[in-house]
């Protein structure tokens, strides 16, 4: 088996990529996608730690399952918000959505 830190590195890299997407993408949907990446990175971490550290207790997988549920909720609300913004402002670019500035 590959050592644990390899999984952790993959997870860290995926997280950084996702975070970069959140910080740098213009399209709100792309940001949503990047957030999913970050959540997945967390999931990999959870499952890897579970597998290597304490596989007799199922908590790691249970938490990952919770992350799925939360991700589903987040995606549903996020998509709804984006559609709502799109309908009202004809854009999904985050930089155009700045009316709360003042």
């Amino acid at each position, binding site marked *: *088996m*590959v*050592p*644990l*830190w*390899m*999984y*952790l*590195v*993959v997870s*860290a*890299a*995926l997280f950084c*990529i996702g*975070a*970069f*997407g959140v*910080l*740098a993408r*213009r*399209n709100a*949907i*792309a940001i*949503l*996608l*990047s957030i*999913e*990446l970050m959540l*997945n990175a967390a999931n*990999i971490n959870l*499952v890897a730690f579970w*597998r*290597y*550290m304490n*596989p*007799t207790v*199922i*908590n790691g*997988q*249970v938490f*990952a*399952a*919770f992350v*799925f*549920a*939360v*991700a*589903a*909720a*987040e995606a*549903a*609300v996020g*998509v*709804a918000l*984006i*559609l*709502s913004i799109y309908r009202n402002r004809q*854009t*999904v670019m985050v*930089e155009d959505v700045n009316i709360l500035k003042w």
Partner: protein
Amino acid sequence: MELTWQAIAFFIFSALTLGGGFAVVTQRNIFHAALFLMLSLFGTAGLFVLLIAPFLAAVQVLVYIGAIAILVLFAIMLTRRLMGLTISLNQQWPAAALAMLVLFGVLLLVLTPVGDDILGQNWSANLPTDGDTAPEVTYITVREIGVAFSTQNGFVLPFEIVSLLLTSALIGAIVVAREDEAI
């Protein structure tokens, strides 16, 4: 570490995950980005299989790829008019990339044995360095997860709360996305 078939599979799936993820944040075409997201998620599912979490892998495919990603695709198709973007990244992307590189470097130092010498402090000392010492998984995970979800000492309350969260998210999504009706 010897190059077993498992290791090869790990590298393939990692490459899928990271490559897909990278394409997600760089692809100009948002539809393609979403497809790459699916690829990345698929790689993650493969990693789950390697970690002996087949249930999570199947749920990953079913829920993430089969439902969440499809939902995003749906949103993309509904906002189709905005496809012709030439610039997909904003002006601050170099700063963001730098920050994330720093973050990745920090994480590398903390998580891997590499950093032990540089930092002078062994952050990953408690982590097993050798994968072969990992204990075996001897039980059926689905049953265990189910038991954990439904026993009092397990996760009943979080489970119910997550159910509530999902319900409220669904209702919220409907309310937010619904067209205003003339009243």
